[in-house]
């Protein structure tokens, strides 16, 4: 099968969907001729025209408000934010409007929109362009939160997000854009709320999100050389969360390490850890649950400091060994 980069997979999903559904359009800053901050919408304007690939003014509040309004009228907008950090400007529209409207109007109005946005560090974009704020959104009832880590997942999950009648926040990690994997040509859907076991193992479960999936797989390779078998699970969607897969895995391995790039304090890892502690898997835990997350600092500009602010492969290896007491 042909390989596609993550970035191409996202673009392909949107293009294929737009060809078959005229209600779908994209709006965002510089997404037209420029092709978006990271080039995801490059050349799309040539096929779909400025009506459906709509450049907007520099106002996330305006873009998100427009998207919510368009969705309410029956359109299916895809809103691209240049950096996920700017979601703060769109917060009222996403949290107080998009997330609530369907509930407050008894289902008579719905908001089928996708907010796509690049997140995470690693590009030297400094503190205001490198954050991982997904935990904020998971706290809000009414919003779905997706975090694909591979090209294959990105295409399938984006299709599911576009089909969903509720607002979905779709986080694309900047460093994932260049990773590639086999991606089918046809449009396919991966259901939201279904985790993927990226690697099977028996000694420890690592639940990782976004770029940390790749780092965890690398760590698992290193651990295997020492005879430690790590299972790596990518939840893929934080809301809804596939708790069953994680619980079953922990029951099998008796140990859990949760890894995400977002700051550990208040991060989604705490949610996963609590879910296990409350579940039947508690009685199978043979070590305290370990969380690895970013340090509680604004992401530094200096590339070395930037790297050290988030979990590394070595730290994942060390965390697993600590959990195993080896």
């Amino acid at each position: 099968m042909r390989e596609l980069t993550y970035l191409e997979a996202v673009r392909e999903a949107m293009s294929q969907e737009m060809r078959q559904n005229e209600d779908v359009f994209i709006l965002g800053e510089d997404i037209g001729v420029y092709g978006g901050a990271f080039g995801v919408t490059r050349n799309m304007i040539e096929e779909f025209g400025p009506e459906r690939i709509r450049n907007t003014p520099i106002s996330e509040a305006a873009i998100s408000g427009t998207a919510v309004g368009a969705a309410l009228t029956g359109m299916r907008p895809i809103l691209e934010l240049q950096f996920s950090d700017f979601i703060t400007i769109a917060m009222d529209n996403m949290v107080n409007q998009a997330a609530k409207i369907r509930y407050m109007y008894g289902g008579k109005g719905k908001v089928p929109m996708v907010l796509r946005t690049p997140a995470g560090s690693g590009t030297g974009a400094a503190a205001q362009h490198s954050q991982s704020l997904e935990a904020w959104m998971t706290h809000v009832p009414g919003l779905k939160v997706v975090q694909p880590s591979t090209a294959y997942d990105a295409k399938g999950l984006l299709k599911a997000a576009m089909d969903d009648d509720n607002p979905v926040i779709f986080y694309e990690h900047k460093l994932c854009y260049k990773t590639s994997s086999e991606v089918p040509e046809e449009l396919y859907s991966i259901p939201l709320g279904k985790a993927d076991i990226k690697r099977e193992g028996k000694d420890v479960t690592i639940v990782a999100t976004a770029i940390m999936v790749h780092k965890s797989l690398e760590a698992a390779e290193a651990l295997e050389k020492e005879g430690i078998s790590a299972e790596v699970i990518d939840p893929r969607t934080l809301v809804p969360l596939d708790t069953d897969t994680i619980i079953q895995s922990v029951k099998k391995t008796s140990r859990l390490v949760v890894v995400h790039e977002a700051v550990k304090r208040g991060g989604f890892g705490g949610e996963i850890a609590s879910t296990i502690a409350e579940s039947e898997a508690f009685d199978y835990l043979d070590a305290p649950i370990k969380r690895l997350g970013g340090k509680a600092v604004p992401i530094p500009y200096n590339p070395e400091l930037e790297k050290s602010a988030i979990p590394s492969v070595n730290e994942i290896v060390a965390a697993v060994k600590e959990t195993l007491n080896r």
Partner: protein
Amino acid sequence: MAKEIFMPKLSSTMEVGTLLQWFKEEGDSVDIGEPLFEIMTDKINIEVESYEEGILLKKYFEEDDEVPINHVVGYIGEAGEKVPDTPPGESGAAPQEDAEDTAAEAEPQQRAEAQSEAAPASQDHHLSDEKIRATPAARRVSREESVSLTDVSGSGPNGRIHQGDVMAFVSSRSSTKATPLAKKVAEGEGVNLQEVKGTGSHGKIYRADVEAAGESTQTSAATGGKRVKMDGIRKVVAQRMLQSKTTAPHVTLTTEVDMTEAISMRKQLLGPIEQQTGFRVSYTEIILKAVAYSLTRHPNINVSLEGNEIVYKDEINLGLAVAVDNGLIVPVVRHADQKGLSALTAECKRLGKAARDSKVKPEEMAGGTFTVSNLGMYAIDAFTPVINQPESSILGVGRINEKPVGVNGDIVLRPMMVLSLSFDHRVIDGAPAAAFLTELKETLEQPFKLLV
């Protein structure tokens, strides 16, 4: 609410009890003080009485099951009350404490679990305050395998117990798992379970496995014969005798006692003592009295070796070796030196009967300072008794037999009896032992000395 029935801890060394029989069925009503079941410990068989009144709701164990101390054996409560289907793991409270604990209103299951988490260390208060560090998985496995976490040492940080530690303990504890039926058949056919390969999960042995093994043994073994596993009292006697013989250098002195005067005294006292106590005084009691008297004069015999110290006992508590069905037990007559012959007779008869009926209480077997082993009822003249440690000496008593002896130049027939004194030469030398035995001989030959 339903109350747990615990396997009691009856001695400091007791770890498990074997359930010999239930006196009640599920659904029977039980009064406080009524015998519920009988257990065999490493020292005694004893009936366990109920601390509660109500209906026996649940019996978790069957006859011949071994149950660790403080484990829940069953429940007593009101008819129809719900109790767990499986025994709720190890529990912390001693039965007495629990009987008084009426404040807790939680369900039994929850309570038992809470106890197992909070205070699995049973009656040792200093231990019960320490929370055992164990992972949830280790606790789950310990519940499933009925392992007390106090017995498991943890390999994790600060001694935290992991499930691997519990599983290692389980496999070391019982390399042979067998169904109760298989155990019974094995015992009946004299098959050693250790040598049977089980076909069940984790090598569990079924009856068929035992039978198959039995057939192959019969064809291969040159000598047949019934094999019975040593357990309970037999096992303890074996261990203690070996331990005594291998740690204490035994020296045995013998002397012959002319029992003429003692026999005469017994005849005169038979009536009065029987009137007073309802029991006939025997030579055993007279000998005990004489031993106690002699020990007061030879305190260097009434000693014990503890570590590097010789302990001179301030009580004279005489152990009385009694043969029972499957071994030997030694109930103790306390303060024998302060008791008259009547009191000694009553006490000895009571203890002897209790011993034969397996009803001696653990505390009645503790605290002895010197033991008397009497084989006078058999055709035994003399023997070398083995010291009942931690005591340092033991007296063996042979039969009274008429023999020709020389008295003032004449050969006359006299009722003679041999006494053998075995002593631990680490703490007692030959001369003081000889002096004690001489005093004892003279006391028995002139028993009126006992009046002094």
